[in-house]
């Protein structure tokens, strides 16, 4: 699940920085891709520590008690844990790092590969999945990559580490989140931002080993009607999606408008807001103003 952004009120956010928060909400990392630095903050004690990282830290995630930082232009994946920092080489134009369980996944946009690492950064597996994806998300069974040129999601089985399914979705889809974790009743959904058609598509995930998407999705896509695919229309083209707890949010980067994406409705909750100021808390969204968090939703 994509977890994003900042909780703490303990420090000022550098202009242009992004924030990653740990799953337990106890740590946050402010990633400054322009300054090539990471500030790690203990949200309980307020202690901060700054690290210089290799060129262009573009993606980061917490896992197994450590922070993993992907430095795209240096082609490095770095693990920061207490006083120890180790790095390994990664592929060309590596853009996303995600963690699930005790595994890390790195996508190389230029090589078109997905690589699996152990927590101590030993390479486990690599597979060719396609170049130039715009987003990567993982659940405990699959990795999902979104290709805007073809407007297609590709699903990779984390068991076989091979592509097992593809689904065309929307016109120019650029971002995706995983909603509704799999449970006994449902395999969960993938939500996809398609600013071209001004929709957020929702596709059921499959609990079958034969494919990643509900087979009904295909029927639905062919217009035969299905509960496995749905969409909501957004007033303007949403191009970013966030998940905070049980809530989904969408953002339009050109009009700077923030929406709450509900099951059948889309509700505007803020306008003229910079995405970099937005903070996701376990309860919802807040905005960073004058070194304070102000609730939005």
């Amino acid at each position, binding site marked *: 699940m994509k977890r994003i952004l900042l909780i703490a009120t303990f420090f000022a956010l550098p202009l242009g920085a992004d924030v990653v928060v740990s799953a337990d909400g106890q740590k946050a990392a402010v990633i400054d891709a322009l300054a090539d630095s990471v500030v790690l903050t203990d949200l309980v004690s307020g202690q901060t520590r700054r690290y210089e990282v290799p060129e262009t830290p573009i993606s980061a995630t917490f896992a197994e008690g450590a922070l993993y930082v992907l430095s*795209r*232009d240096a082609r490095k994946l770095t693990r920061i844990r207490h006083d120890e920092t180790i790095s390994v080489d990664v592929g060309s134009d590596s853009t996303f790092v995600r963690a699930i369980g005790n595994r890390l996944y790195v996508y190389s946009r230029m090589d078109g590969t997905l690589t699996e690492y152990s927590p101590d950064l030993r390479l486990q597996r690599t597979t060719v999945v396609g170049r130039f994806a715009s987003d990567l998300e993982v659940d405990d069974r699959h990795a999902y990559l979104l290709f805007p040129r073809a407007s297609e999601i590709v699903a990779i089985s984390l068991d076989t580490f091979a592509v097992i399914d593809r689904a065309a979705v929307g016109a120019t889809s650029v971002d995706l989140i995983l909603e509704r974790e799999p449970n006994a009743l449902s395999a969960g959904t993938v939500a996809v931002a398609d*600013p071209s058609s001004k929709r957020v598509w929702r596709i059921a995930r499959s609990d079958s080993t034969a494919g990643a998407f509900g087979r009904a999705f295909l029927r639905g896509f062919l217009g035969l009607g299905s509960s496995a695919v749905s969409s909501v229309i957004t007033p303007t083209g949403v191009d970013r999606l966030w998940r905070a707890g049980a809530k989904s949010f969408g953002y339009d980067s050109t009009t700077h408008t923030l929406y709450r994406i509900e099951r059948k409705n889309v509700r505007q909750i803020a306008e003229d807001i910079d995405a970099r100021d937005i903070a996701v808390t376990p309860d919802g969204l807040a905005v960073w103003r004058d070194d304070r968090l102000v609730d939005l939703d």
Partner: protein
Amino acid sequence: MKSRFVPAILFLATTALGQTRLADDFERAALEKQIARERDPIARAAAHINLGDLDANRAEMTSARREFRKALEIASRHRRSARSSSHFTDYATATAYAALAHAKLGERVEAFALCEEAVRYLSDSAKTWNLYSSAMLVLGEHAKAASAARNAIAIASREAAESPTAGHLLDVNIYQYALASALMKLDGDEAVAVLARIVDSLATDPFDPIRREIARREAFEVFTSTRNDADAFLALHNRAGLRLGKLYEERGDFGRARAAYDRVLALRSDDPSALAALARLSANVEEKRRHYADAFEANPFSMDLIREYRRFAGDAGDADTGTATVGARMRRALQLLESNRRNEARQALVDLARDFPRNATIAALVREAERAPARPAILASVNRQGIEASESDLRAVIEFLSDEGALSAADRLTLDAMTFSSIAEFAPPQDNAFAGGSIGNIRFRFQQPTKFRGDFASSSNLRLDYRILGVAGDALLLDPIRVARP
């Protein structure tokens, strides 16, 4: 305008190394016409960025920023329009241009954010990565620029492998040049290797049709904004060759440096940077003068050229430049500055400023010429009797004495207590009385014609011991103590 050339235009523009002023004016006129008739917002934004770069090369920064701001407005408007009509390729391209405009304005965070936004949508576009690289290079982020350039090369190389046309191969070389530019501050060895590959590649068979086209059009002018393959080829050939030559020079490999500059001049015989470089590398003073004269004719306001020439003029001394051209007038003014003839230098520069009122280079030189002269080193001499004064020492004294308020009472007392000795060439005496003469190129005269004990009437070069009383125009006013045969 072919869209393929737009990013190539921009990249080469950001690294322009000094083209002729005539070419600048012509190119400016061409870009302004293009802006007036062009409907494509991307092409218009690119043209404004090119105009801004032309202004920046002339040190006209206010105009440059105005052009970059216009480019940003156009690109931003087109972003919004493309986005609302769901044309995402256009949106991403406009976003990349807006990023570059932000970078030109020094707006780092905005530039980086928009670069990232552009590649979200078009990470498979070599042009987009090239714009990203250009923006990062402008911001001084060389590692980021190099990485983006490598992405552009990787994508373009695949396209060229599938379809090895001159156009595709030219694109690969343009992106290689972007990489070399980024590497200049990171890894000089790799930069040299990349530039050498470019120069060699441009000499290969696939580019024969372009070279024939260039020869057929007799088009040898290198423009910042390129409109077709031939223009892009020429610009790249020129820039890569100059960069390569400079790197070889820095490494002390002067033979390879000369060869690189000669290669540039083979295709463009009046390139000012190549000519200045050959002047630098020449062992012969007259050959240096000739190359510098040619370089100033090509671009009289290049600060790099001016700095180099001043070092040369300081060592080599004056030479007649004439005043027929702007280049000659600049060289004359610089020679005057270097020989501490500030009043004359100031006048020459003020005359130039009248003809080029917006030129920041001339304005800076005028300010320098108008600054109060430094206290002559000779006034600090420990030994105050029989000081052997050189021509340069005496020039400094003239400048100092000519500046009202520069000479303090203490300095006046010091000067009055000093005696000097120089070899002087006297003007023919009248009734055995000497009125004045010159020490080197410094003219002097006495308060009144003076007769000396001894027979000196038949000699013109004599050792003169004297005190300095003051200045009369550009001549020194001396109080003679004695003369002797040298």
